[in-house]
Structure formats: structure tokens, C-alpha cells
């Protein structure tokens, strides 16, 4: 977190620069079937974030050496397009995208019934086309919808949201400025049916009480986003 205490991002009435209250989400919209050649796909517009996710498989797993006798391998990649950021991002895997790919895979593996497809591979590709804070959450949410759209069986979908702290106030779903200048960021991956977690990170500085507030905001927001995911899947392809 940048931690520039002197940028004022929330006023005395608890109204944030983009007009939201502390516990409000940005607008979220979801479409399925946006990548015609994929087995499943989704687009998530979240604030001004724009992510697409494609699912390929279950397919034959090669190289053979990564094949598993008892279950499918889940191959997840998160990537930012070069034009997705204010300053151009050089193409190619970097440490950040590698790590986000890994935690996203860890989250999804916790819910996908991989044992149903021994010796297979399921590829999940997340591409951020426009990035405005919280892309790992947006990407994980998009991947979850794309898996459902591809008909891959899961125990539950994963909904991912990040709350944080700005000007010493805990707020829900940080936007870009809040992410740059805020004091803490707590992204979580939540199973909406049980309230359990499959993904958790946090950076910055939160007292134990603030931490609890951010946690609660994420839980509430997850239920809202979950409904949008369900509606998109019911609504049929774009």
C-alpha cells in the first residue's frame, strides 16, 4: 500500500471520491460466452476493470509428466494485457502475475471436482484488458463464472472481493486511487454457500478491530456479487 496519509479520499460524511459509502461495491456486470472458441468464457466489468476468462478442457494432459493418475490438472494463468494499465505493461510473465496465477489456482482447486477427470487437464486463462484496482479479485471471479459456463463441476463458486482502509476508515472494494494511496488491502476468496474461504491475502496496517470490519464488508459484498454471477449464468450467452 502506498500509505500517503495526506490524500483525502473520504469526507466527513463517509462519502468516497466516487460517491460510494464505506460499505458500497462498485457496479459489477457479467456476461458469458464472450470467447466463441473456448469451452467456457466470461467477461466481468467491475467498476472500470475489464477482465475476460476462458476455460479449455477437460482435455488430454500434456506434457505427460504433469499428468495425474487420480485427477485432472488445473492450469491457471493470470495476465495483464500490455494496454491494460496507465503506463504500458511489458508483455511476459512477471513475478506478480506468477504469484497471482498460483493463488488463483490454489483457490479454484479447492472447489473444482478434479477427481472426476483423471489424467486430464483443464486450462483457465484470465486476461485483464483494463485494470483499475482489485484485478486479482475480478479475475478470480471471472474464472469461476467461466468454469461454471464450461460445465466443470464445482462444490461451490468462488467470489472474490477486497476491502481495505483509506484515511483510517475501513471501506469496501477499493478503487484505483484508494488502492494507490490507501493504508491496507484485504482480498478474500469466499464460498457464498458456506461462508468458508479459499483465498486470503492482506497487505498494510490494520488493527484487530479494523481487520474484523474489513472481513465483514467482504462477506457482505460477496453475497451481492454472487447473485450477479448466478444471473449471468442463467441469462444465456452474450
Amino acid at each position, binding site marked *: 500500500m502506498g500509505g500517503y496519509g495526506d490524500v483525502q479520499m473520504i469526507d466527513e460524511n463517509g462519502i468516497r471520491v466516487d460517491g460510494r459509502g464505506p460499505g458500497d461495491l462498485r457496479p459489477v456486470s457479467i456476461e458469458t460466452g464472450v470467447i466463441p472458441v*473456448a469451452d467456457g468464457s466470461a467477461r466481468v466489468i467491475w467498476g472500470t476493470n475489464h477482465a475476460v476468462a476462458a476455460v*479449455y478442457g477437460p482435455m488430454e494432459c500434456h506434457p505427460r509428466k504433469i499428468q495425474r493418475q487420480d485427477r485432472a490438472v488445473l492450469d491457471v494463468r493470470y495476465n495483464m494485457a500490455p494496454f491494460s494499465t496507465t503506463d504500458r505493461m511489458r508483455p511476459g510473465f512477471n513475478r506478480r502475475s506468477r504469484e497471482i496465477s498460483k493463488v488463483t489456482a490454489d483457490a479454484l482447486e479447492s472447489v473444482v471436482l478434479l477427481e472426476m477427470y483423471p489424467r486430464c487437464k483443464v486450462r483457465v486463462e484470465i*486476461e485483464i484488458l483494463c485494470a483499475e484496482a482489485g484485478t486479482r479479485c475480478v479475475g478470480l471471479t471471472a474464472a469461476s463464472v467461466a468454469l461454471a459456463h464450461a460445465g466443470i463441476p464445482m462444490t461451490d463458486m468462488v467470489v472474490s472481493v477486497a476491502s481495505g482502509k483509506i484515511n483510517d476508515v475501513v471501506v469496501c472494494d477499493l478503487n484505483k486511487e484508494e488502492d494507490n494511496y490507501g493504508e491496507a488491502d484485504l482480498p478474500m476468496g469466499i464460498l457464498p454457500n458456506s461462508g468458508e474461504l479459499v483465498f486470503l491475502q492482506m497487505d498494510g496496517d490494520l488493527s484487530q478491530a479494523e481487520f474484523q470490519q474489513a472481513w465483514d464488508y467482504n462477506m457482505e459484498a460477496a453475497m451481492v456479487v454472487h447473485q450477479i454471477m448466478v444471473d449471468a449464468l442463467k441469462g444465456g450467452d452474450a
Partner: protein
Amino acid sequence: MAIPIVPQLLRAHLAELAENDERHDGRARWESRNTELEIGVLRNAEGSAKVRIGDTIVYAGVKFQIMTPYPDRPNQGGLMCSAEIRPVAGPNWEPGPPSPESIELGRVVDRGIRESGCIDVDNLCIIPGEKAWQVILDLFAISDDGNLFDAFALAGIAALKSAMLPEVKFEMSDSDRPLPVSKTPIMCSYHKVGGRFVYDADGREELGGDERIHITLGDDDHVHSLQKGLKGIFTENEFSEIMEHAQSRCKELREMVHNAEEAD
């Protein structure tokens, strides 16, 4: 009609169709798929376009950087064009460093735009010898059902023509101004399928076909770039036939770019 996807069978199937001058999706030999162009679709890019040709979908985004001009060309900015086909775009695209195919794609599209001279690099100078604009055009496929070449080239020129030099962000002026783009080079690609060339091959035709030829023509039918790809032999007559079609089709696509510009 079931279409075989094993390349060997697919080749035979496509050859059979070719004997009756047919294509597997019912198109005529020189007919293109439905082609759509949208501009201004990427908020963090200074210029952008999305092109859909059948089930092929690509984005192009323009970004700017400040560069120091090369010592031997103190008045010139630069143009860089880079194509990425990431594994999101289809079951057969692999992660990892750019494949020879995607390198060729980027270079062929780059050349058509660069060689047309549509971007006047002398126009990009800010302070001679010290600062100039570098234009970066990134081409990005999210769904590959064949003919990425033409999709990239079309999205590329449309994105450039919609781009604004970010003079406000770089604290050089109170308002941004459009990137000057003086021409509209257009690429048309032809694949040999079942023994004869067709226009706008889709994924199956690429898989079961032979060589391909890419032609970029400028506003006045001038040739700016050619590329033959893949194994295969062709005759002078075959080439003349293609060139003739390219001259008429490029005009139509150029019109589409101009219309999108005006609608913007």
C-alpha cells in the same frame, strides 16, 4: 455436416469441397466472414479498437512513451508494434515465449503499417535530439478462429487513427491532440486450401491448408508489404488473381475504418 478435425482427413475433406468450388461454411471463394469494427473500447489505452471476423476476436491498444531520439535521427520518434497470442485465444496456443508464428504475425502486421508511411515519425519529435513520442501498438487476440493477420492489421490501423497523444498526462499541454495518421494501409490474406487460394480462411481452413500470402495495400493501390508464409509453391498467375481481389477488398475495409472514425 460434421467436419473432421484430424488434419489429414480435414485436408481431404477441404480438397473435395474445392473441386466443386465450395467452402466448408458455405462461403464463396473470395467471400469474407462477417466483419465488425469498434473503436475506443479500452479505457486505459490512448487509442483502441476491437475487431471481430467470424469467431475471431482481437483488440488493439495504443500507448505512448517518451523516448530519446537515436543520435543519427534527432528529429524522429518511433513506432513499435507487438503482437501477442496468449493461450486464452484457443486450445492450441501455448504459454511461454512468443512462438515463431506469433513473431511472424507481429512483424508482418508491423511492416504493413510502418512501410505505408502512415505514421510520420518526424511528426513525433518533441524536442529535437532530446525527446520524442514512441508509439506502441499492442495487438492482442482473445479468440482465434483463423485469419488473425487481417484482424490485427484492421484493429491496428483503426486504433492508431483513434489515438490521442496524451499531452495532458505528460504535462505538455492543456489538451490532448489526435495522433496524425496520414494513410490507411489495409491487409488482405489468402490461403491455399484444397489447391486454390481463398480469402479470409477460418481456423479449419488454416489447419487443413497450405501456404498463405499477405498483401498490404495503401490508399492508391500501392503495395507496401508482402509475405508468403508456410510451405508451398505458387505461380505468377495465382498471384495476379489474388492481387486483383486485394485491390477491391482493401477499398471496402478502408471504408469501414473511415466510417468508424466518423462515428467516433
